[in-house]
């Protein structure tokens, strides 16, 4: 952090804190998770950027969705995302979360991850190398600075849209069993 950052840090410590201490949920969602170990260990060392893998969603504010998302995994992703405290950021790896990628016509993979949970950023490449992941982290910093990494706000504001999509694909989820589709249920 060079001297230029100090005034910015003093102006809004919350952003400064969020930027340089992104704690990622260590939750292996898809095929891209094989990229995470080299990222966090000696060869590429994500800790330089303040990125640490954390055991539970309660402790994390970054969620890396690595690769395709199957219907069964989407249930766990939604559960984990709900349990993460605000502010939280989601980054999708590769093209599969964007539009289904090469599984575009498969019967059990999700086509648009963005319909179910808000995604702040995408990394191209099937699967992106650690350098690409660090570029994404730096981009996320800039987005946080500009205040446009507001996926969690979108999720809160039009939660009804997200809930309808989630209910459409996973009607049996325990989350929906108790609650009927209310408009603005506080999550």
């Amino acid at each position, binding site marked *: 952090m060079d001297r230029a950052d100090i005034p910015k840090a003093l102006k809004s410590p919350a952003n400064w804190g969020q930027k*340089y201490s992104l704690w990622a949920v260590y939750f292996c969602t898809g095929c891209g998770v094989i990229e995470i170990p080299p990222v966090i260990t000696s060869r590429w060392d994500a800790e330089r950027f*303040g990125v640490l893998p954390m055991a539970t969603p309660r*402790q994390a504010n970054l969620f890396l969705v690595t690769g395709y998302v199957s219907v069964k995994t989407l249930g766990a992703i939604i559960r984990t995302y709900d349990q993460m405290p*605000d502010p939280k950021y989601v980054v999708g790896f590769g093209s599969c979360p964007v539009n289904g990628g090469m599984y575009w016509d498969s019967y059990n993979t999700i086509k648009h991850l963005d319909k179910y949970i808000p995604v702040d950023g995408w990394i191209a490449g099937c699967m992106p190398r650690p350098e690409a992941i660090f570029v994404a982290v730096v981009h996320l910093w800039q987005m946080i600075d500009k205040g446009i990494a507001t996926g969690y706000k979108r999720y809160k504001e039009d939660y009804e849209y997200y809930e309808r999509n989630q209910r459409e694909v996973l009607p049996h989820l325990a989350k929906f069993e108790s609650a009927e589709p209310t408009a603005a249920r506080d999550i």
Partner: protein
Amino acid sequence: MMVKRIALILALPVVGFLVAVLFMGLSRKITARIQRRYGPPLYQPIIDVVKLLTQKENISHGVLFDFGILLGLAGALVTIAFIPAGGIHPLSTSGDFLVVLYLMLLSPLGLALAAGASENPNASIGVSRKLTLALGYEVPFLLAALAVMTRFGTTSLVEIVSAQQSSMLGWGAAALPLSALATFLVLPAMLGIRPFDFATAPQEIASGPLVELGGKYLAFAAIQGALHTYIVLSLFVDLFLGGGANILTFLAKVLAVFFVGTCINAVLPRVSVAQALRYLWKWPTLLALAGLAIAAVMRG
């Protein structure tokens, strides 16, 4: 005089807090360097704590959950005020080593209450592992502490420290080599660092008692952990390394012991609860028993 004493009383926890935050950053830097990587900047813990405190949403499991976290941190702060650091020992006349031993119970009890109230099996398993480990390392540590008290004939930390000021040979480690070695062998267990960090193991039990802690709760738990490290290290320095004439030599010694502790932590794998108990009750306990026997005979 009164104002100076109150200032000192307040100064000690603040010094402890700053040293603890420095230690958190230092340990991550040293571990990174040992693993041939750069590691985060030294002030990374400050960034983490600021992020956690300014979180926009905190999740609590009830009043007991909050009270447990508060008691944890408060217990650690109070204990620091009673441990002489270098020349500063404002509250030592109202609490000797026995009081400090029992005050050290407050913060683990607080964390255990919070973990119990968080209604998660991982937390309960973490607490039971932490208490079993505490039973494990308490046997040799108490034997060593009694050896020091018997050898210097007092239970007051200030007198123990002043008795060691004469010279390097006067140190507790020189007078009671076996007890000092036993306590050093048991230090990683008391600090809760690898190879004895199975109580908060992220892989096995999703970081044990910390599983439901997020936002400001996690910040408080992290600070409490760092303060606990400072407490244990300052006790070790006071008992065996002469406690330092002024605050700087004291902190230097604490830093040295911390550095060795972190190196051990960085290279050793995690042991299981049974292995830990088997180790803690074998060599360190034998050494501490021998040290105590010698101290008792020499005093008698």
